[in-house]
C-alpha cells in the first residue's frame, strides 16, 4: 500500500470489528459452545491487530505474540471444552441460563418470556448427500454391532 499508516489502520479496523463481533456474541448468545467460539473470535481480532502493528514497525514482536496467543488459545479451548462437558453432564443442556440456579437465596429467577418459532431450515443438521451404492450388510456382523 502507498501509505503504511493507512494500511495499518485498515487492518486495525478489521481487527476491531472482529473483536466487537466476538464481544456482542459472547454477551448475547446463550449456548456455551457459541460463547467460547466468540471468545476465540475476540482473540482473532487481537491477533490481526498485533500482526498489523508488527508489519508497521517492521518487527517480529507482533508475530511472536500471536504465536503465544495461539498456544494460550489451544490451552483455553481444551480446558473450556472439559468444563462445558462437565456442566452439560450436570444440567443436560448447553444453556448458560441454567446455571442461574447457583444464585443467592431471595434473588428472582430470569424467565424467558417468549420463544420465537423455529424455522424449517434450522431443524435439520448440515448433511452430506450420500454417494456411491449402499454396501451389502452381513447379518452376523450386524448382531455384534447393534449401535453404529
Amino acid at each position, binding site marked *: *500500500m*502507498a*501509505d*503504511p*499508516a*493507512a*494500511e495499518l*489502520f*485498515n*487492518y*486495525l479496523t*478489521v481487527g476491531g470489528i*472482529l473483536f*466487537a*463481533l466476538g*464481544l456482542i456474541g459472547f*454477551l*448475547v448468545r*446463550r*449456548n456455551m*459452545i*457459541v460463547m*467460547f*467460539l466468540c471468545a*476465540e*473470535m475476540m482473540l*482473532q481480532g487481537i*491477533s*490481526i491487530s498485533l*500482526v*498489523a502493528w*508488527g*508489519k508497521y*514497525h*517492521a*518487527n*517480529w514482536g507482533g*508475530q*511472536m505474540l500471536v*504465536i503465544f496467543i*495461539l498456544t*494460550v*488459545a489451544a*490451552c483455553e479451548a481444551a*480446558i473450556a471444552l*472439559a468444563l462445558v*462437558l462437565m456442566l452439560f*453432564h*450436570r444440567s*443436560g*443442556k*448447553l*444453556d448458560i441460563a*441454567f446455571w442461574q440456579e447457583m444464585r443467592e437465596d431471595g434473588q428472582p429467577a430470569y424467565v424467558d418470556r417468549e*420463544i*420465537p418459532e*423455529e424455522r424449517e431450515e434450522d*431443524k*435439520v443438521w*448440515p448433511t452430506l448427500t450420500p454417494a456411491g451404492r449402499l454396501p451389502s450388510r452381513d447379518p452376523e456382523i450386524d448382531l455384534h454391532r447393534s449401535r453404529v
Partner: protein
Amino acid sequence: MTLMLSANPLWAAIPWNDLIGSPLAWGVVAGAISLLLLIPGSSQRARTPGLGFAAAALILLGLGMGRADSLGAQLSFWVLAALTVGSAGAAIAMRSAVYSAIWFAVSLLGTGGLFCLQNAQFLGVATVVVYAGAIVVTFLFVVMLAQPEGHDAYDRISWGPLAKPVIVGSAAVLLGLVLGTVGPALGVLGAKATAKATAKATVKTAPETAETPSDSAAKSKAESGAKAGVKTVVTESPSTKGDETAAGAAVTEPSLPNRSAIDTIDGRGHMARLGSVLFSRHLLAVELGGTLLLAALVGAVAIVIQGRDERAKQPAGAGEERDNG
C-alpha cells in the same frame, strides 16, 4: 456532562465532524442495525432488511478504508476482509451451533489470508491448521455429542428484550471510539489525512526519495533494519557512554548471528528467520508455553476424571438432575 467530556483530552482528540462524514462511522452504524435484526431473539421477518443492512455495512466499511497501490492488492484485501467480517457476523447470528462453528471456520480462513497478506505466512497457515483444523473440529465434536438434535430453544433467544440493543449499541460505540482515536493518531482519519492526501497527490510525480517529513511510518521501516547495526556500534564505542552502560547493554542484548538480516520481517527465508528469532530471543517464553500446554492437558484430564468420580459415587442424584433439565 458535556463539559466534563469536552475537557477530556481523548474526547477532544476525536475529529467529530470528520467522523460523521466518514463512511466508516456509517458502516459501523449499519452493521449495528443489521446485527440487531439478525441476532437470535428477533423475529423472522427482520431477516431480509438485516441482510440488506449487513451488505450496506460491508460496502461502507470498504469505502472508508485506505486505498492500495495496485488493484490486485486492494481487491485481495477487500475480499479477505469482507470474508472475515461477514462470516464472523454470520457465526454469531446463526441459530444452530453447528452452523456457527462452520461460519467461524470460514472466518478463520479469511483471517489466515489476511495474515498471509502481511508477511506472516507461517501464522496464516498455523491459524488455519490449529484453529480451523483442531479447535473448531473439537467444538463440533462437543456440539454433536451434547446437542444431538442440533437445535434448541436457547439458541433462538437471548437475554430479555433490553439486553440485545444495549450490548450491540455499546459495542458499536466502543468500536467507533477506538477507530475515531486511532485513526487521527495515525494521520489516517480527519483533517491531517486530507492534507496528507493532497500533499501526496502533488508529490506523486516527484521521485520516491522525496518523502514528506511527517511521514515517519515509512522511515521507521528503513530505520529498524539499520537499528541493530547502530546498537552494536554504540556498545563497541565506550567513549560516548560509560563502560558500565556499555557492558550492561552487551549483557542484556546477546549477540545473535547476522542480526540485521534476522530483524526484517519481509523478504526471503521467512520461516528460517521466524524460527531463529523464536528460539533465540523468546526461548524462555517457548519453554513456558510448552509448560502451559502440559498443565492445560493435565488440567483437562483432571476435570473430566473428577466429574466421572462424582457421577459414579451418586448415580441417582445425577440422574435426577438430568431429568429435571
